[in-house]
């Protein structure tokens, strides 16, 4: 017999069914029928060569793009028509990109507060949350630093803080360590994994790095727009 907590933990958070995505009126096919399920708190790595559709799959799951065919369901609700996508982006999903995508003229603190401002969070609550994340990522002394003054690893840790600001249930990471050296890459990934576990976040991560991928709960191998194997 399972407890309610176990039931919740095993609940499907992301469900993608028969996802197809093509561009130029079907001339360029990127996804060719992808099915995917992710459970609460699970860390999933998407591996595969460049152009196999990893990033596109993340974009569809994150609501940044719409599938040509198929459905994406997150927390029991299908993305697309009728769903408040602004609310979804603010509260249910966080993004981490390979090139961190921070605003260079703002400080680390200001960058991290952007999602909180967008969501209308009280400043005191936002600062408290940021302090907590900054401590956990070791950036508490970098809060007032401009992004240009931060190292590559610090920038990516800033991006992680920003993605987690509004306590999303899902974290989508597109090559989060792709622009970092091996040592920094390992540290940043470990931090990401730890935070995802402690925050109870479902992590869906595209990566080329096998050593990082194998540390996840599941590894999905993608080729030619399809999930070929599951390790």
């Amino acid at each position, binding site marked *: 017999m399972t407890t309610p907590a176990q039931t919740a933990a095993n609940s499907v958070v992301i469900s993608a069914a028969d996802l197809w995505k093509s561009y130029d009126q079907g001339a360029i096919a990127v996804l060719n029928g992808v099915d995917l399920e992710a459970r609460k708190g699970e860390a999933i790595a998407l591996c595969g060569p460049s152009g196999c559709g990893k990033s596109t799959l993340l*974009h569809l799951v994150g609501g940044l793009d719409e599938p040509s065919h198929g459905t994406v369901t997150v927390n029991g609700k299908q993305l697309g028509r009728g769903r408040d996508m*602004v609310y979804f982006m603010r509260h249910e999903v966080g993004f981490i990109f*390979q090139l961190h*995508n*921070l605003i260079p003229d703002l400080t680390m603190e200001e960058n991290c507060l952007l999602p909180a*401002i*967008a969501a209308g969070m009280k*400043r005191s609550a936002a600062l408290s949350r940021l302090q907590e994340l900054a401590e956990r990522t070791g950036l508490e002394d970098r809060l007032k630093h401009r992004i240009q003054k931060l190292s590559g690893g610090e920038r990516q840790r800033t991006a992680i803080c920003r993605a987690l600001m509004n306590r999303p249930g899902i974290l989508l990471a597109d090559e989060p360590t792709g622009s970092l050296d091996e040592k920094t890459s390992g540290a940043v990934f470990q931090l990401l994994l730890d935070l995802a576990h402690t925050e109870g976040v479902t992590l869906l991560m595209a990566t080329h790095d096998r050593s990082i991928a194998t540390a996840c709960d599941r590894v999905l191998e993608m080729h030619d727009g399809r999930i070929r194997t599951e390790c």
Partner: protein
Amino acid sequence: MIFLRLILVNLLRHKIRTFISIAGIAFSVAAMLTVVTVLEGAVGMFSSILSSGAEMIVFERNVSDLFFSDVPPNAKDDIARWPIVDHADPVLFGVVSSADHPIITCFGVTAKDSRIRNATWVSGSADQFDKGGTPVVLGERAAEFLEASTGKDVPIGHGTFHVIGVIRTRNGFEDGGVFIPLEAAQRFFHKEGSSVITIKLRNKEDAAAFKAQVHRQYPNLIALEDAEFSRSYSQFKILKATAWAVGGCGLALGGLGVANTMIMSVFTRIREIAILRVNGFANGQIVATIFGESAIVAIGGALAGLALGVITLYALKEVPALHGYVDVTIHPLLMLVVVMLALLTGIAGAVYPAAYAMRIKPVEALRFE
């Protein structure tokens, strides 16, 4: 606070571009303020010539310019006898020239005219006015540029006049004009009557009755109250419309500058806008940052333009050739209108960039890493 930072950061990121936009609005506002104020001042001065010691004016109906108005001499004598009229003063307007001065306004007036009675006499006196001969009283500035003084003869047009005095008034047109007795002016301009009759009523409330009586007895004439005349006189309307049109064109140019700046601003930060969207910014919030930028540019430009306009007006006032013609009284309402127009222009300039920003798809903007 960070919202404001997002706006300011973008403006400060391209300081020269921001400065040029603010300067564009500032010059537009200054131009509008200066042109409108100068022309409103000129209109006000001309109106004050007519309203000197009077509250109504009678002139020929349907004339395009008061210089072409011809009020018959018997009308003045008749109207002056009406019980509701306190006094009626005929004024004949003419334009004459002298060496180096192609346009000099000439006022043909009687000795009873308030301009002659109430002026500050720099030299000479009103006693000799209207006593026959060809006397002339010069406005102070006219005396300067004609290099004439009391007791001398001065050539004006095809005649020579004897200067019996120099007067100072607060009106630039009068200060730059010459005053000739009405009969001499009628001979000089080959007219029998006058251009206008300025009327002072015994009781201001009789204005409507006076107008009706003029209409009944002199269908070719029209009587208007001073304010009514200022509003309806076609020359004034043309001048005011010209002023607003010139100013409006200036503001439109400034608006195009803002539009250009905002378009560049949006185009150069498509990626940044995509980042904001990925972080939960709604269209309204993104549009607010763009309108915020244009509003800051417009307000900054408007304030700088007001300062520049006031400085320009005071500078124009000090130009000797314009002495007395420029009235630097700036109406608060005009300032408010100009600032509001600048703000509207700035906001209008941000409409297309904002609409463009709303159409930016994060996935496309972020793909080009």
